[in-house]
């Protein structure tokens, strides 16, 4: 390490007079992993887009290898050795890995046709170079998300990329896959490739980054050596204040609490089997496990969004079997789904529309929907959940234009509006910034205090450990164990969730 490969000095960028970046400094050394940390909307993406040639900067300097450069467009950025791995995979699913890597710069035979043999050979070399165990002639659509991401990385490096930007690369990976990704990052470092790493997950930053630069509201806050800082300091820098109790939780006395939902021997063939648990009023029951273990599917079955073969679901002691979500909703069960963009929101419609969608039956006078009743509910939840946007009347803004945190609050509000007795939260804080996380936790805590039974599926162990009364652990469709709040620690959970057979 040592030689500085990239310098961004006093970068400014404004949109219609409003500064999205007001003087950011960033430098990257050869073979360094430099994390970029900031809340949603802090300007991380804008900075990356400036670097990637998508936006043109207003003022400031970019230096690569000590030379002032101007980046004009995406292909110019690639030529200068900058490769960006976006959050969404942008490979063509029906082409092979090799074809994707060489897309747009196909290797030709002397007859002008594509030389598949050479393409595969060279792609194979590149994959092997980074120890990625994928055949170059596999169709991309048959790969897992993690494998696709690796192909993207190989592709970025193949453009002679010296600077690789990874935008939340682990957001849809399981723990195993994260390990594979880290392996690749290590190998890239060895090859003196520099990496700009964007992530919300503190633990990851501490594992793989050398330095961290924090930005807030488009402004540069500071740069720290990872080895010389800690999570609290970074959060404080990100948020601009100390968060005393990040996880707000007042535990209820559950001894006398009524059972709200009980599940007995629930089985969905090929997905999970023999799942039993109960959740009481005022309890937060966590579901930990690896991605793909079957947690979301269990919830979908309870909610009537997926069929199950055997077992029973009891709501307040009465057996129910929902075959459609509307039956669950009417019985007072809500589900905040895992993926807010795909399953939670009608992104192209307004905040108000989304907030009232699941509870629409309660606003109907005769046949018409009462605008007044809708407005009351909208006003209540946008206040309670502090849903914010630039516009005054948040409810008229398109849901898709809000930040991830605000979007998640809309989904939460939509389900609170049905006045649930049982609320299932599937990854309630995924991809949400620190402030919104904090607010969502305090809302969840309040709901538990009000006596709602809450099931929380989460892959973030800190929130499982700090928010839940009891935790069910799901491993490959089975439930090997359940832990009470006094027994919760990361190692014990991971032992159950990923460890060997016991």
């Amino acid at each position, binding site marked *: 390490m040592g030689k500085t490969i990239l310098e961004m000095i006093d970068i400014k960028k404004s949109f219609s007079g409003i500064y999205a970046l007001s003087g950011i400094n960033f430098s990257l050394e050869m073979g360094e992993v430099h994390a970029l940390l900031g809340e949603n909307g802090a300007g991380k993406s804008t900075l990356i887009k400036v670097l990637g040639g998508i936006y043109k900067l207003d003022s400031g300097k970019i230096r690569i290898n000590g030379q002032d450069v101007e980046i004009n467009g995406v292909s110019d950025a690639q030529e200068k050795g900058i490769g960006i791995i976006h959050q969404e995979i942008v490979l063509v699913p029906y082409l092979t890995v090799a074809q994707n890597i060489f897309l747009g710069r196909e290797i030709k035979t002397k007859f002008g046709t594509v030389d598949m043999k050479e393409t595969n050979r060279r792609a194979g070399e590149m994959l092997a170079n980074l120890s990625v165990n994928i055949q170059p002639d596999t169709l991309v659509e048959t790969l897992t998300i993690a494998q696709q991401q690796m192909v993207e990385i190989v592709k970025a490096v193949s453009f002679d990329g010296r600077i690789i930007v990874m935008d939340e690369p682990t957001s849809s990976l399981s723990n195993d896959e994260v390990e594979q990704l880290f392996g690749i990052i290590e190998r890239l470092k060895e090859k003196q490739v520099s990496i700009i790493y964007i992530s919300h997950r503190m633990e990851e930053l501490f594992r793989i980054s050398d330095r961290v630069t924090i930005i807030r509201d488009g402004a540069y806050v500071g740069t720290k050596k990872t080895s010389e800082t800690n999570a609290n300091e970074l959060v404080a820098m990100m948020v601009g204040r100390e968060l005393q109790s990040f996880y707000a939780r007042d535990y209820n006395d559950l001894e006398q609490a009524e059972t709200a939902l009980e599940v007995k021997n629930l089985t969905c063939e090929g997905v999970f089997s023999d799942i039993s648990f109960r959740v009481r009023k005022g309890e937060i029951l966590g579901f930990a496990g690896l991605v793909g273990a079957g947690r979301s599917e269990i919830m979908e079955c309870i909610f009537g969004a997926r069929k199950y073969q055997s077992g029973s679901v009891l709501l307040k002691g009465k057996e129910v079997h929902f075959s459609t979500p509307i039956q*669950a909703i009417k019985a007072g069960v809500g589900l905040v789904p895992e993926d807010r963009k795909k*399953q939670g929101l009608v992104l*192209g*419609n307004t905040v108000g529309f989304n907030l009232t969608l699941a509870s629409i039956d309660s606003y109907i006078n005769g046949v*018409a929907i009462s605008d007044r009743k809708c407005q009351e509910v909208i006003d209540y939840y946008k206040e309670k959940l502090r849903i914010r946007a630039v*516009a005054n009347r948040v409810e008229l803004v398109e849901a898709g234009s809000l930040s991830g945190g605000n979007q998640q609050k809309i989904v939460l509000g939509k389900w609170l509006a049905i006045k649930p007795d049982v609320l299932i939260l599937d990854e309630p804080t995924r991809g949400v910034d620190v402030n919104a996380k904090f607010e969502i936790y305090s809302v969840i805590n309040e709901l538990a205090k009000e006596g709602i039974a809450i099931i929380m599926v989460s892959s973030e162990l800190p929130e499982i450990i700090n928010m839940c009364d009891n935790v069910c652990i799901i491993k490959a469709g089975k439930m090997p164990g359940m832990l009470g709040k006094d027994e919760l620690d990361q190692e014990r959970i991971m032992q159950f969730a990923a460890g060997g057979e016991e």
Partner: protein
Amino acid sequence: MMNEKKSTAGNSILSVFTGNTGIIGVLVILCVIVALATDKFLTPGNVISVLRQISINTYIALGMTLIIILGHIDLAVGAIVAMSGTLTVGFVVNQGMPIGVAIAAGIAIGILAGLIDGVVVSKFRVPAFIITMAMMNVCNGIAYVYSGGQSTRITDKFFIAIGTGYLFNIIPLPVVYMIILIAVFSFLLSKTKFGTYVYAIGGNREAARLSGVLIKKVEIIVFTLSGALAAFAGLVLASRMYSGQPSVGSGYEMDAIAACVLGGTSMAGGRGRISGTVFGAMVIGIISNGLNLIGVSSYWQLIVKGLIIACAVVLDSQKGNLALLRKKK
């Protein structure tokens, strides 16, 4: 931020105008051009005649708006127009059915066609483009088989009055139906649970499903409504022509789709409004009427109409982009 209240139904009268500025602009420009080209355009008689001409397309386009917001398409409506008109007239003239029964049967056949489309689309997840194209062929076939390709004249006074009568001796009945239907469908789409669900399904099917929307039910109802409206359009058309003709329907589906798209309904689903569609239908009607008045031959009219529609849609899409550019850059 951007696009305030773009897709959900506008509640106030004002939003009918603010939400449709693009198409209203096109409409105004078109009116000015035609009015400058010929002084016959802005006469009361011609205005009423334009309204009558657009009414049939409007009935169909109302159903099409719902279909397109859902994210589907219905190519069968033109054929349903022909089928219901031909059969209803035939039932009266050939089978000697009482007029009321014949009308009910004609509408029922349209409803049945829509229902089948809806069931196949929702239960089997077949693309609506394919199944409604198949239905288009079937309905056209039925009209031709039944009539042997001949048009059938009808002289029944009541039947003729449906399409040619007037309210208060001034407003043509087809225009009256149009106004009622516009009111009913605006209400349906903007004020009811059903309408909300149509937007939700078109905007994000999975989110709608998890929010308790019974998707299949809504889809079946929408296709059935579309079939019913097309059948009704067929009756009115047959009445206006004093005859059932198996060849009249072709092209109506495209006019209806054009009205929707001109009016800002997104082919991707999830967005659109009744008022936009009505303005879209007006634009198409005025193009035809204006070209007639100016004396352009009907063959040339096709070309001009196509070009104007293409330009209007491109302009409209650019308007969106420009607004976005202004806000982003």
